[in-house]
């Protein structure tokens, strides 16, 4: 089956990042339809009907999130578009910003109309200099074209969009870390509740949505929530931009419905496993998601099926590992990332991660002790679910996955393991 290109349909159209080509291709029609024909409540209803789930990591239903924001608020409400794209393995939001930035802006306009928001921020990771510039150009064009600013679509509705660059910190992709960072502070996540929908940026009610999530909104408004809901498996509707990297012959971004299996993704779309080896394992949803083994390759790449398989859909980033990969080494590399990115606010994460790094480093140096594997699992348990923000889980879950699915490789590094195999 070919890819089902809805989001990426126009990525290759020459000049598409400019507003003229965008409008010629039917752009800003959905926003106009929302303003002309639908009440804000009806827009939220369509998005709810579509079943659209957040593409940033948690898969939370977008329409439901929007409906949590109070209609009336003493303080201004805000939309934060999350373009931090820091989850290792993920490289799809940048394509939207570079190749079809007006699609994102149109999604933002519709979301703001629906929720009653007059200021939106796009928080772009600091390294994405070209992406932020492309988006800023598109924002400038949208202002000039009357799609941003005052009196949108002849309604008494104003909307400002600010492109804001981060400065290198993975934790600022977490929604409350993002809000703190946007406010010009260290990106230390906030304790929830209160949830951002009630108390977010500048204390106002705030919605945080991923770039790809918002880019889905125009087509939902143009073609209807029911149309969208019929695409893909139930409760996992629409397409996803799967970003595939690692040991495949044709890495890249593939837009597919979520009934695609990992096998189809890897072998049919990505040209199979690269290098000398066979498939050993794959990480289905960014480095925070627990790996699945070659035996599990027939899993459907939907939020729900991956959850059932003990992993998660996460950011849609698939990292493929062939059987030359040394799993303990990979686990250490992953752990070091989370250790480096921990904000240090809470003890289980701040102390647990360096401890895990230390034990695994020792094991890889040939100084493993019997019981090390169980000790690591215990530390993972002491982190999981006990931290301020989900970064702790994001480190503990994949580590536990590596330890449990490839226990033998870790045991070999401990004295006990060596004694047994000797």
């Amino acid at each position, binding site marked *: 089956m070919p890819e089902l290109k809805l989001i990426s349909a126009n990525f290759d159209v020459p000049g598409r990042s400019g507003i003229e080509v965008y409008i010629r291709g039917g752009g800003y029609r959905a926003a106009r339809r929302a303003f002309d024909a639908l009440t804000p409540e009806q827009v939220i209803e369509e998005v709810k009907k579509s079943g659209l789930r957040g593409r940033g990591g948690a898969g939370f239903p977008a329409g439901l999130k929007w409906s949590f924001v109070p209609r009336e608020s003493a303080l201004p409400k805000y939309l934060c578009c999350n373009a931090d794209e820091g989850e290792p*393995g993920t490289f799809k939001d940048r394509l939207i910003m570079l190749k079809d930035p007006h699609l994102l802006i149109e999604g933002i306009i519709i979301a703001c109309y629906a929720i009653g928001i007059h200021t939106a921020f796009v928080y772009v990771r600091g390294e994405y200099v*070209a992406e932020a510039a492309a988006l800023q150009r598109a924002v400038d064009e949208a202002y000039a074209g009357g799609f941003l600013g005052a009196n949108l679509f002849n309604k008494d509705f104003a909307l400002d969009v600010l492109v804001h660059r981060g400065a290198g910190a993975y934790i600022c992709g977490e929604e409350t870390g993002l809000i703190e960072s946007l406010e010009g*502070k260290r990106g230390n996540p906030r304790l929830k509740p209160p949830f951002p929908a009630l108390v977010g940026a500048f204390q106002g009610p705030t919605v945080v949505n991923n770039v790809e999530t918002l880019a889905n909104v125009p087509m939902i408004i143009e073609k209807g929530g029911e149309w969208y809901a019929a695409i893909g498996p139930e409760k996992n509707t629409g397409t996803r931009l799967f*970003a595939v990297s*690692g040991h495949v012959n044709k890495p890249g971004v593939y837009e597919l419905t979520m009934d695609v299996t990992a096998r189809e993704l890897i072998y049919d779309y990505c040209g199979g496993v690269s290098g000398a080896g066979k498939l050993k394992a794959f990480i289905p949803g960014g480095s925070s998601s627990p790996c699945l083994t070659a035996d599990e390759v027939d899993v459907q790449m939907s939020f729900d099926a991956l959850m059932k398989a003990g992993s998660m859909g996460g950011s849609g980033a698939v990292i493929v590992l062939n059987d030359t990969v040394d799993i303990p080494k990979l686990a250490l590399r992953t752990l070091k990332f989370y250790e480096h990115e921990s904000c240090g606010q809470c003890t289980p994460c701040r102390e647990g991660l360096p401890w895990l790094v230390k034990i695994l480093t020792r094991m890889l140096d040939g100084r493993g002790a019997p019981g090390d594997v169980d000790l690591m699992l215990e530390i993972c348990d002491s982190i999981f679910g006990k931290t301020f923000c989900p970064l702790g889980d994001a480190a503990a879950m994949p580590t536990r996955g590596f330890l449990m699915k490839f226990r033998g490789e870790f045991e070999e590094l401990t004295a006990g393991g060596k004694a047994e195999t000797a």
Partner: protein
Amino acid sequence: MEATKTVLSPEARREAESLMKKYPDPGAALLPILHIAQREFGHISTDVEEYVAALTGLSTTRVHGVVSFYTMYRKAPGGKYLLQLCTNVSCTLAGAEDLLGHLIRRLGVSPGETTPDGKFTLLTVECLGACGSAPAMQINDDYHEELTAEKIDRLLDSLV
């Protein structure tokens, strides 16, 4: 008080001032203003922190806290070209370790160090969001992808 020579150019200062007006709270312009300051001064010294604090009306503690939190703010002077090699998972699977070895040998410096001629600073960084075309390296603002040792050699030779 002693006059400090750490002053933004008039255009940069105007840019910073207009940024402060764009946000619901002027303090929210701190990250973008620090990007501007880094563009002008090359790195964020204590002097620059103090200058930015005065400009924004924020405490130096707040400014310093922010500068130290984010990896992209350079705390010390560096080379003309900042070589930021990604060593996260997908890049490592694609051979980033070998490329790092190559860079270390070619430049004669370790990650975090600058070549004696002041031309290159070598850094290892986390995932750049270019995993589909790994291994990747960002040189100043620009991405370079699908790297090999030969490609790196050609790249570095082309930088003057």
